[in-house]
């Protein structure tokens, strides 16, 4: 009789920090201690707290172990599983903040990271084995599809989704029910449902985690969408760089076919639906809906002009509905729990929850799901655990290369579609990159422009040439060769690219520049007028120097300088025995290695 479950995270983060070896060690130790009949090992999807991985949870008590190594496993098995003594040194207790509940449990939900999250999309991630359809069914899986096919008309389904207020989670925020209602009436011999799993924003991994942790929720939702709009075929377009997601999707689709949850005459309703996977080769532009469809058709991934919209002429020129992974993952819960339940979460015009991938200068890197309207301050300070090393929060970038930054002065903004648009940002797909005082905003804008220049498909001139010119101007500014006029030109070109590009990639590519110009103009001015980088990032505007009175003459800086730019002087500072060193600014490559090596804090950059 199984009395305890050991859940081991098999998401990408924990897999790359070695969770596979931990799983094997558990199997070995459990066997060695004769507990195989009593303890079950389950590999799950992402728990969310990736920064503390590999993560292991033991149920029924819900003990949360973080940063587990294969060497720790013996102790966990012998102490916890055999003798019931929690291995305190590995238990994540939120720096002592997590307090036991009245039954004496200290669970995941008692930690600041999880306490205020509301897991709808991620409800099964880290709870079920994504490679076992039975576990998904145990969590009400496929009940929504059953309900739709046996009790509801396609119109009922669309009405429920519309009433829920669900909006596209890929970034645009287009109302999902409305999108379906545009496609449903169009007659055609074949219609399609497409899932956009071409998550390409740097730092974003929400969709990846859903596919890895709960692939059936997307499959079920696509079948529901198929029924609602009258489509019998679906495609999931997923990046080939997501091997775990692809593998689990394949397993899930095969299991669903075996159970007859995909295929002909599902639930004896006369409805047929089947799904196919298409692998993307990693082009960012293929996340744009028309480019994605062009790519599925076997052509080079380039966007098509709209109209006609996909609802009329989409994949293979047939009416098509395309939604993002996270949007789909909401659907089964909306069907089962009702539109009112979903609409009760969130704000006036942004309903439900949103998953964010927290990254950058933040204590708890990972995946969080919170109701729409949660303040940025709560996300960063409470859930995210704040900025490491006592640094000050400067800005958060939402929407990756298509989005903008929210400056520290707006940290109390309630995060939803409309509030972010109002301050010149966008929700984006959910990447949230946190920056502190050591980040240069001009350099950040340059980073994203480098990305869009690389990823522009080249079809239209404003994007292909415009983004390159933008990047060149930013490079000029970070090299200290910019002028105030350049800032005006920069802004003008940004607006031109936005207005004239063919697809979303070009239309949003200038956003990081526009947002930083708006909120951090003084930093641009410092670069062009004072020729200084206030954050100390842009190398051409930096110079390193040694305070000769603080220098002890240990020579560690000179020894480690890759450019041999540091030499001994004749000066011996009072209180020191050895002569101090100095930096030849002509030879210095500004790598900062000397500063890291100086134990006497004698080196500074200005």
């Amino acid at each position: 009789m199984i009395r305890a479950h050991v859940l081991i995270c098999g998401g990408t983060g924990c897999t790359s920090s070695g969770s596979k070896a931990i799983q094997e060690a558990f199997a070995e130790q459990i066997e060695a201690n004769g507990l195989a009949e009593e303890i079950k090992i389950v590999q799950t999807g992402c728990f969310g707290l990736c920064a503390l991985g590999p993560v292991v949870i033991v149920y029924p008590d819900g003990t949360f172990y973080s940063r587990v190594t294969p060497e720790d496993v013996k102790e966990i098995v012998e102490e916890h599983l055999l003798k019931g003594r929690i291995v305190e040194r590995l238990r994540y207790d939120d720096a002592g903040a997590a307090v036991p509940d009245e039954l004496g449990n200290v669970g995941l939900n008692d930690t600041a990271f999880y306490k205020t999250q509301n897991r709808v999309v991620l409800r099964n991630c880290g709870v079920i084995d994504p490679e076992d359809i039975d576990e998904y069914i145990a969590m009400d899986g496929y009940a929504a599809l059953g309900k739709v096919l046996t009790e509801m008309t396609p119109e009922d389904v669309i009405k429920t989704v519309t009433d829920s207020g669900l909006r596209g989670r890929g970034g645009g925020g287009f109302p999902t029910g409305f999108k379906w209602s545009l496609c449903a009436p169009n007659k055609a011999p074949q219609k399609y449902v497409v899932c956009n799993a071409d998550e390409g924003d740097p730092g974003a991994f929400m969709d990846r985690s859903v596919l890895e942790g709960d692939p059936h929720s997307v499959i079920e939702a696509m079948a529901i969408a198929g029924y609602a709009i009258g489509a019998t075929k679906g495609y999931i377009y997923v990046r080939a760089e997501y091997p775990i997601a692809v593998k689990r999707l394949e397993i899930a689709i095969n299991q669903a076919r075996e159970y007859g949850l995909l295929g002909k005459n599902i639930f004896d309703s006369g409805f047929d639906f089947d799904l196919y996977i298409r692998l993307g080769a990693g082009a960012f532009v293929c996340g744009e809906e028309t480019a994605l469809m062009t790519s599925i058709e076997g052509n080079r991934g380039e966007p098509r002009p709209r109209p006609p919209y996909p609802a009329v002429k989409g994949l293979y020129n047939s009416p098509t509905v395309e939604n993002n992974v996270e949007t789909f993952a909401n659907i089964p819960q909306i069907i089962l729990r009702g539109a009112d339940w979903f609409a009760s979460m969130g704000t006036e015009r942004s309903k439900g929850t949103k998953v964010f991938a927290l990254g950058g200068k933040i204590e708890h890197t990972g995946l969080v799901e919170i109701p729409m309207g949660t303040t940025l301050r709560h996300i960063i300070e409470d859930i995210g655990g704040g900025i490491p090393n006592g640094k000050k929060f400067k800005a958060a970038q939402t929407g990756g290369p298509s989005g903008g930054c929210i400056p520290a002065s707006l940290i109390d903004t309630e995060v939803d579609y409309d509030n972010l648009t109002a301050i010149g940002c966008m929700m984006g797909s959910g990447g949230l990159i946190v920056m502190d005082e050591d980040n240069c905003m001009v350099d950040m804008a340059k980073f994203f422009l480098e990305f869009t220049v690389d990823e522009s498909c080249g079809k239209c001139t404003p994007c292909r040439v415009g983004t390159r010119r933008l990047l060149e101007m930013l490079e000029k500014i970070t090299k200290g060769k910019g002028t105030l006029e350049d800032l005006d030109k920069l802004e003008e070109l940004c607006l031109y690219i936005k207005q004239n590009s063919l697809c979303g990639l070009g239309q949003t590519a200038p956003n990081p520049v526009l947002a930083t110009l708006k909120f951090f103009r003084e930093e641009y001015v410092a670069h062009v007028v004072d020729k200084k980088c206030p954050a100390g990032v842009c190398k051409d505007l930096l110079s390193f120097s040694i305070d000769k009175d603080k220098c002890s003459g240990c020579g560690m800086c000179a020894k480690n300088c890759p450019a041999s730019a540091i030499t001994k002087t004749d000066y011996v500072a009072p209180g020191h025995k050895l002569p101090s060193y100095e930096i030849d600014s002509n030879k210095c490559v500004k790598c900062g290695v000397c500063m890291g090596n100086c134990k006497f804090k004698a080196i500074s950059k200005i």
Partner: protein
Amino acid sequence: MKSLAELQAIKDRMKDKVVLREGTDGIRVVVGMATCGIAAGARPVLNAFVEGVNNGGLAGKVSVSQTGCIGICQYEPVVEVFESGKDKVTYVKMTAEKAQEVVEKHLKGGNVVTEYTIGAYDA
């Protein structure tokens, strides 16, 4: 899959297997499993509770887990029953048979088996 009944059958079959992970707001049974507890025979007691809870349809309402030494080694095997809003009940010198009785009378019936509690031995 031809009917909702088929789906429900799979769900029913699987529910008890995943319910362990949902945590419970109900009753929590903790068996002392330190060296002293194991030596005194805590393992059959633990197994009796696990089986009693699963076979008695209590999965999801009652969780069974272990703990280390409670500090009253002479009374091992010791079992504590926590229920929110109620006082903790401590059973001592337990056996598998007594465990079955506690499952029936206390966990299912709601009546503490007073003669096995530490109070009965103290007196």
